[in-house]
């Protein structure tokens, strides 16, 4: 089974958008490999002809009428905003440049 290197751990942390300290990365490298060792057990089972189960409830395509309903109170929602400007959230710039 796969073994995670320090570089792998850093790559996954980047994918997960987690800023981790060198100590955290070192600890996670050991812990994640220990947990991955447990996953190896699944290789014992031949599952070639087994369909996956993503959820257990036998409901599909739940639809409802598209009707207008009151939205949440903007003031209550924006009260949680780390930074706001009037009725808008202030977000970090996502486009570089001047």
């Amino acid at each position, binding site marked *: 089974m*796969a073994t*995670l290197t320090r570089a*792998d*751990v850093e790559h*996954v*942390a980047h*994918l*997960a*958008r*987690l*800023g*981790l*300290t060198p100590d*955290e990365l070192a600890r*996670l490298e050991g*812990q*994640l490999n*220990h*947990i991955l060792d*447990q*996953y190896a*057990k*699944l290789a*014992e*089972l031949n*599952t070639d002809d*087994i*369909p*996956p*189960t*993503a*959820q*257990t*409830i036998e*409901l599909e395509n*739940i639809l*409802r009428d598209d009707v207008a309903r009151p939205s*949440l*109170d903007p003031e*209550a*929602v924006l*009260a*949680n*905003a*780390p*930074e706001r400007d009037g009725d808008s*959230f202030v*977000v*970090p*710039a*996502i486009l*570089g440049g001047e």
Partner: protein
Amino acid sequence: MADDLTQLLAHEMASRLRAGETSSRELAAAHLARAHATDRGLHAWLTIDDERALAEADAADAKLAAARAEGSAAVNALHPLHGIPIALKDLVSVKGGQCTAGSRILEGYRAPYDAHITERLREAGAVILGKTNMDEFAMGSSCEHSAFGPTANPWDLERVPGGSSGGSAASVAAFQTPLSIGTDTGGSIRQPAALCGIVGMKPTYGRVSRFGIVAFASSLDQIGPFARDVRDASALLHAVSGRDERDSTSAPIPVPDDLVNLPASEDEAASWLRGKRFGVPKEYFVKGMDPAVEARIREAVTTLEAAGATVDEVSLPHTDYGLATYYIVAPAEASANLARYDGVRFGHSVRGGDDYLADYLATRGTGFGPEVKRRIMLGTYALSAGYYDAFYLKALKVRTLIKRDFDELFGAGFDALVAPTSPDVAFRFGEKMADPVRMYLSDACTLPVNMAGLPGVSIPCGLADGLPVGLQLIGPAWSEATLMRAARAYEGATADAAWRGVLPTDLAKLDDPRVPTPAERVAAPR
């Protein structure tokens, strides 16, 4: 504590309310006072909202008075929970109240709306006292992963209450509230119920709407009740169950009224067992399990047989693969669900980095605790390019095998399965913190039930070395009414058992205003 209202069961409180012998305000005030007075050593609560609770209690009293004026039919039409106090795990949205999910990243967040179950509880007339402590984002089996410090077990303040719904379980066991709500993704209701000596139920996936609940793993999470007896737990389950179009996974399946009509008489309850058929899955007696716990479970089986039930040893052959499967599926779903905590619209936010990416990394890196980071890392890895088939897809296929094991047994006519809830009694603070896999094994007997989407209930079945042991009953999908009936039957069959009257050992210590807090106990050198 001769006529202490907090010592009553919820249905006893309801009888007194209807008889005019007490009021909802008195009930709320008594529980609020006890919660404030006894929570230093327990730390079961993150928020206690006296003002809101007393206002809700007054409204319940007014509604009861109006019903009384209308006649006995109107009084009888009130839900059994009308006027009864309740606590909610701190991942249930209550409009205007803080909802942290046990995480710094949600500290200070105030829910702009009520969860579906909050609405349902209001309709039933229940009185919400406050919000209880939990492992961060429900990830944990001990409550030690709360960002706000651990909760203690009222049976031994040096030990954990279980988790993740540890505060909900401990508060009920310590008579701070008669009822509480938890969530169960891999055992987070049943395991703390077992460790605290109370009743805890995880319903069928789809039974209760999760609208307004902080999500952990969406194909596994279910909401369920805690109480000190089966009838109370069943009434609470009844109040919160049912279809809600805002959670498309909540099923349009009728909620059985039998849930509020369980027999009051112990003998009548126990007589239900005659001719019933139970299976005991041999794989649930896991390696390394506490022999005293196993002994209590074997005694419970003997009790069921003595009451006229047939009990056969059965096999769920893929049980041993449950842990690995769960620890792929749950973290994978969590890593997706927790992507929303980006510090932009709500919650903890770190700004001022070089670019938006730096702000995300800093916000999430400082806002999440170690266990949550570990699970996000696991889940992200299991879903990442090149590993998806080997891990996530493989786990979903093994999940099919686990579910088929259960389907076969229930197809063969078993009314329910009987198993330990947890392989251990409550463990000491710190005992399982160093090794995540040891902590994960706490849920070995509960998480296959979530994988299969089935209902499971944990009920007290005695003590091992002075600490509570939980008996788990597992049923087919949508069998809650039968399962609660079975649990009530076991309760009836053991009504005279010596352990029934034993109160949590360390309850009296909680009255001491200088008792160490759980955080102080964890910090103290041992």
